Every structure is written in structure tokens, then in C-alpha cells.
């Protein structure tokens, strides 16, 4: 095949241009650390990475929801713990008041203490989340679930939160668990004890002690349910953290460069460019020497 001098120069220039382009591509990879920045770079890898990103974002949403729920249920457990302590104190006072050696004045004093504990229990049962939600109100969480007399005005709805795309976990404990449906009406019972003490009504007071025992067990059982829910939510948070790590690893493997391979590629491309430039220089010199 006949090859003219100018053709050789054209080929040499094209080779140098290709080598420069390869160096630019390799430099961009090494600098950015990314192999795939747009779909056309590698449609299969880009698609896989985007699907993983979407899953990661959805998982982060679920993690956020689970964390909010875990915080709320921890707060609920705190309120139930307070309630449990208050119940124990009321029971102690009730037992003291039921003692035959106490007179009416002494019981009136105890009644005042129990009433104070009752008010504290109402406050604990009406605990709100940082977002202003009443935690023990069930679905009616914009209003205080327990009235000043201890009556429950919420409902029995227990909210669930999505732990992933196909399952949920209990996220709230309704205050209905502190009502007669689950044993006794816990908060009105405290008011009842205070009233019995104030009225020096020994038979009612003695009868209330048994109910107080039931109430203590009722609150303890509710705390057990709360603890179980908290445990599930904690495990979910840990699982989500692992999932996020796995998905990030997948995204990295899809779109990021292997730095060793990229650096090697850059070195090769640079060498090729140097060689190409040398060939061009020799070629031009040769053609000049030959009058071309």
C-alpha cells in the first residue's frame, strides 16, 4: 500500500490525539475516583448503583422512622417507669393508712401525699414527645389522653412503623393498657385511694390494696411489652446500619474506580502519549530531511 508522508503525519497526529484523550480520561478517573458518572459511562453499572442508592435512601427513611419510634418508646418506657414508682409509693402509703393504729388525721395527711402522687402520675401518663405528641394517647395523640380525674380519653390504637419494605414493628403503646380492659383503671385507682384516705374509709382502702397490686403488675406487663418493642426497634436500627453499609459497598463497587488499576492505567496512557509524541517528532524530522 502506498503511504504518503502527509498520511503518516495524519496517522501520527491521530495517534497522539487518541493518546491525549486516554490520558485525560485516566486523569479524570484518578482525580474524581469515579468510573461511572453518567448512565452512558456504563449503563449496567449505573443502573445497579442507582437501584442501590434508592434502596439505601428508602432504608435511611425507615431507619429515621424507627429511630424516632425508638426514642418515643424509650420515653414511653420512662413514663411507665415513673408511673410504676408512683404506684409503689401509693401502695406503701395505702398499706400504712390501712393500719389500724392510724387515725383520721394521719390518714388525711397520707391522702394529701397520695393526691400529690396521683397528680404526678397523671402528668407522667400525659407525657408528650418533643414533637408535641401525647405518647400514651393511641390514635388521639393531639389531646391529653388522661383527664384530671384519671379517666382515659384516648383509644386502643397501637401504631406500627415500617422496618423495611415488607414488615412493621410496634411503635407506640396506647394508654388503654392502663384501663380496666387490661386489669384495673390505674389512674382513677390512685384518686380512689386518696379519697378513701381522706374519708377515713378503711374498708375501701383495704380493698384498694389488692387493686394496687393488680395495677403494679399491669404497669409492669405494659413495660414488658414496651421493652419488647424497644428491643425489636434497636435490632432494626442495627440491621439497617448493616444494610446501609452493604448498599454503600455495592454502590462503590459499581461506580468507583479501583485506584491501583486507575493509576496503572494513567501510567500506561502517559507512556503511550510520550511514545506517540516521540514518533511524531522523528517522523517530521525524517520528512524534513528527505525534502518532504
Amino acid at each position, binding site marked *: *500500500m*502506498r*503511504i*504518503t*508522508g*502527509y*498520511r503518516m503525519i*495524519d*496517522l501520527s497526529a*491521530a495517534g497522539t490525539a487518541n493518546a491525549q484523550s486516554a490520558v485525560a480520561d485516566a486523569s479524570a478517573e484518578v482525580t474524581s475516583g469515579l468510573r461511572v458518572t*453518567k*448512565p*452512558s*459511562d*456504563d*449503563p449496567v453499572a*449505573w*443502573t445497579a448503583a*442507582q*437501584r442501590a*442508592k*434508592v434502596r439505601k*435512601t*428508602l432504608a*435511611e*427513611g*425507615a431507619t*429515621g*422512622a*424507627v429511630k*424516632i*419510634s425508638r426514642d*418515643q418508646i424509650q420515653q414511653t418506657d420512662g413514663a411507665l417507669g415513673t408511673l410504676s414508682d408512683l404506684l409503689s409509693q401509693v401502695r406503701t402509703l395505702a398499706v400504712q393508712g390501712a393500719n389500724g393504729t392510724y387515725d383520721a388525721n394521719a390518714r388525711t395527711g397520707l391522702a394529701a401525699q397520695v393526691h400529690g402522687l396521683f397528680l404526678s402520675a397523671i402528668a407522667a401518663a400525659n407525657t408528650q*414527645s418533643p*414533637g*408535641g*405528641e*401525647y405518647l400514651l*394517647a*393511641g*390514635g*388521639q*395523640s*393531639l389531646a391529653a389522653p388522661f383527664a384530671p380525674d384519671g379517666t382515659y380519653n384516648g*383509644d386502643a*390504637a397501637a*401504631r*406500627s*412503623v*415500617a422496618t423495611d*419494605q*415488607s414488615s*412493621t414493628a410496634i*411503635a*407506640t403503646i396506647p394508654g388503654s393498657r392502663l384501663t380496666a380492659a387490661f386489669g384495673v383503671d390505674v389512674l382513677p385507682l390512685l384518686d380512689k385511694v386518696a379519697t378513701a384516705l381522706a374519708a377515713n374509709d378503711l374498708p375501701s382502702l383495704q380493698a384498694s390494696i389488692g387493686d394496687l397490686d393488680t395495677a403494679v403488675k399491669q404497669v409492669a406487663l405494659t413495660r414488658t411489652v414496651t421493652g419488647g418493642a424497644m428491643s425489636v426497634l434497636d435490632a432494626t436500627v442495627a440491621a439497617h446500619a448493616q444494610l446501609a453499609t452493604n448498599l454503600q459497598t455495592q454502590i462503590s463497587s459499581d461506580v468507583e474506580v479501583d485506584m491501583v488499576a486507575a493509576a496503572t492505567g494513567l501510567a500506561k496512557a502517559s507512556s503511550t502519549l510520550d511514545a506517540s509524541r516521540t514518533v511524531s517528532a522523528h517522523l517530521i524530522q525524517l*520528512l524534513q530531511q*528527505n*525534502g*518532504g
Partner: protein
Amino acid sequence: MSDLMSLLSIGAASLAAQNSGVAVASNNVANANTVGYSRERVDLEAMIGAPNLGGVRSNDPQRYADELLGNRIRLAAGSLAMAKSSASALADLQDAVSSNGATVDEQLATLFSDLGQVSASPTDSSLRDQAVTAQRELVAGIRRRAAAIDDQRQQANERIIDNSNGASQLAKQLASFNLQIQKNGADPMLKDQRDQIATQLSQLVGGSAHTDANGQMRFILDGGAVVVDGVAASKIETATDPTTGNAIVQVVDGATRRDVTQQIAGGAIGADVSARDKSIAGAAAGLDQLAYDISTKLNAVHAGNAGLDGVNGRNMFVQPTQVAGAAASMAVDPALDADPSKLAAAAPGAGPGDNTGALALYNLASQGVAAGGKTLGNAAIDLATSVGTQASNANSDAKGDQIISDHLAGLRDSLSGVDVQEELTNLSKFQNASSAMTKLISTIDAMLGDFISKV
């Protein structure tokens, strides 16, 4: 006496022949850098020798060009121009669909993620604000992309109009060269220039060119429309399609207008027509379908649930009336936009703390509610991937066509290219022969002088 005079004639003819060789070699060197120039060569022919006159004469310079190769080069030029233009148009389309911040699938995932968080605390106004903000950003992202895609359509139309005007000018020039060749005979330089014009025309409209027995070139589009026939050239004009608003390409021959838009299967115009009517239209339709699916599917769930005020039946997005144009007109429902407490997170009558609605909205992320039974996120990803795959394929096509074009350029150079060293050698050869002939003529002249002085 007569023999010496014959020798003088031989010398003069030979001198002329050698000088024409010098002239052709000089012309070749002078045009070594002229794009499209085909080298020429002088063929010397020996005349019948003694006892007749003898000597040498030069024929007309021969142009080193191959008609078949020229046709292949034009076809390859049209194909390469189409591939490069397609790659450029599709790269721009890919930017319109996938660049400019978070992708649609990422924005959609953020919305679902935020709805998931609302489900954890449905009465929390900050979480509701966050979800509605994500909804606004998704809408803005989809509308921005719809506008960017439409901008690509308009740019393609502008290029089609500009290139059609350019093609019309080239067709006119091609006919003009046919006329000059008809008048001036087979001037090699005119043919080279005509080939260049034909190649440029192919780069705009594809098509093919053939030279008939009279040396006249005919240029025909892929669909058979004749653009140049000898000295007659049709105009290539554009008009606006009243339905789509797109530019259509017409070949105008006198009063006859022929729509050739879909027949142009090569060149830059073919690339832009294909990108506009297939890739860009496909991306726009895909985005419309996605926007329609997002709006209608989320609306259906949202309307079945209640806001903090316990009222249900409200939309989350403005309900689209049809798929076409759904992306450009997508909007957050004005009532929800103004008051995020209307986000329907609860089942009707279940109380504001219920999260049935928020969970149902969140769960839509994993349900195959988009066209083709895909999830909405996957539909968004597939839309971007489809454009990316087309852009990737166009790049590959451009590389492949470049290789073919380079190969043909090598073949053309092998046949028609000027090699300066070769021409300098020829120049030296003809120059030496010319000098020798000059000496011959001087010698004979001296002999004649001697003879005459002795008579």
C-alpha cells in the same frame, strides 16, 4: 538536411513532454495540502520510431481517483456525520434527563423516605414540612427535566433548519460544478471540488451521489428524492408541522414540495430527526408517563386517607387529566402546598396519631404501580438508563464509523494523495530529461549552423 530538421522536431516535442511532466509534478506539490485534491500524472507515449519520425509526446494529465471509492467515502462521511451528531444530541439529552442535581429516582426515594418518617410521628409538623418540601423538590425536578428535554427538541429543530439551508446551498453549488464540468470538459480540479461538495452534502443529508456517462453527478436522498440532477438542483427547505411544531424537511422542485423528513437516514439532519422523533420524544413520553403515574397513584392513596383535621378525599398532587404533558404541568396540590397538616397520614376516623395513610404512601415505593408493573423508582431509573444506553451506543457507532472513515481515507490517500518526495523525484527526472533535450537541440542547432556555413 531533412534528418537534422526531424531531430529538431523530436527535440522540441520531447522538451514539451518533459516540461508538462515538470508542470504536473509542480502542481501536485503545490496542492499537497489541498483537501480533496487528487494527484495527477503525465503518461509519456513513444511515437513510432525510425525510419519514421519517432520521439515522445505527453497525453493529457491523468487524475488518480476512483469513482467507487469516492462513493464509499461519501457514504461513510454521511454515516460518520450522523453518528457524531447523534452522539452529541444524545449526550445533551442524557444531561437533560440525568444531570442538574439529584436524579428523579433519588428525589422520589427522598419523598418516600420522608413519608416513612412521617409515619413514625404523624402529628409532627416538622416531619410533615420535610415531606412536602421533598414533594415540591420532586415536582420541580421533573418539571425542570421536562423543560430541558423540550429545549433539546427545539435545539434539534434549529439544527435541522440550519443544516437544511446549508444543504440547499451545497446542492446549488453541486449543480453549478456540474455545469462548469459540462462546459470545461473533464478538468480534474473541478471534479475534486465537486467531490468535496458532494461529501459535505452527504455529511448533512446522507444519501448517495453517482456520476453518469456524461460526467454529470446526480445526488439522491435515501428515500429516492433527487436533490441534484446534472445542472438542476432542488431546494431543501423546512416548514413547521402544525401538529407537533417540529421542523419538517422538504425537497422543493418548482411548485412541487415533497416531505422527505423521514427519508433522510444519514448525515447531521438524519441524526437530529432521529434524535428528535425517537430519543427525545421517547424521553419526553417516558417522563410524562412517570409524572402521571406518580401523581395518580399517590393521589389515589392520599385521597383515601385523612389529614390532621380528619378530612379525607384530598389529592397530594394536582390530578393530571392525561399522560401527554403531565411532567410539564406537574404540581403539588395547592391546599397541601399551603398547609402540610393536610398531608393524609391517617386512616379516616382513626385519629391524627394514626399512620395508616403515611405507611400506605411509603409502601407505594415498593409496589409495581408504574407502567409495565415497575416500581416508580425503577421506572425513573429505566428512563435515564434508556437514554444513557442510546448515548453509549451512539458513541460506539461514532467510533466504529470513524474507523471506517479513517480506513477509507487511507485508501484514498494511497491512490490519490500527493507524496512530496515522490513528486520531487518526478520533478528531478523530468527536469533532467528536459535539460538533455535542451542540449540535444543546441547540438543539432550547431550541426545545422556548421552545415549551412559550409554550403
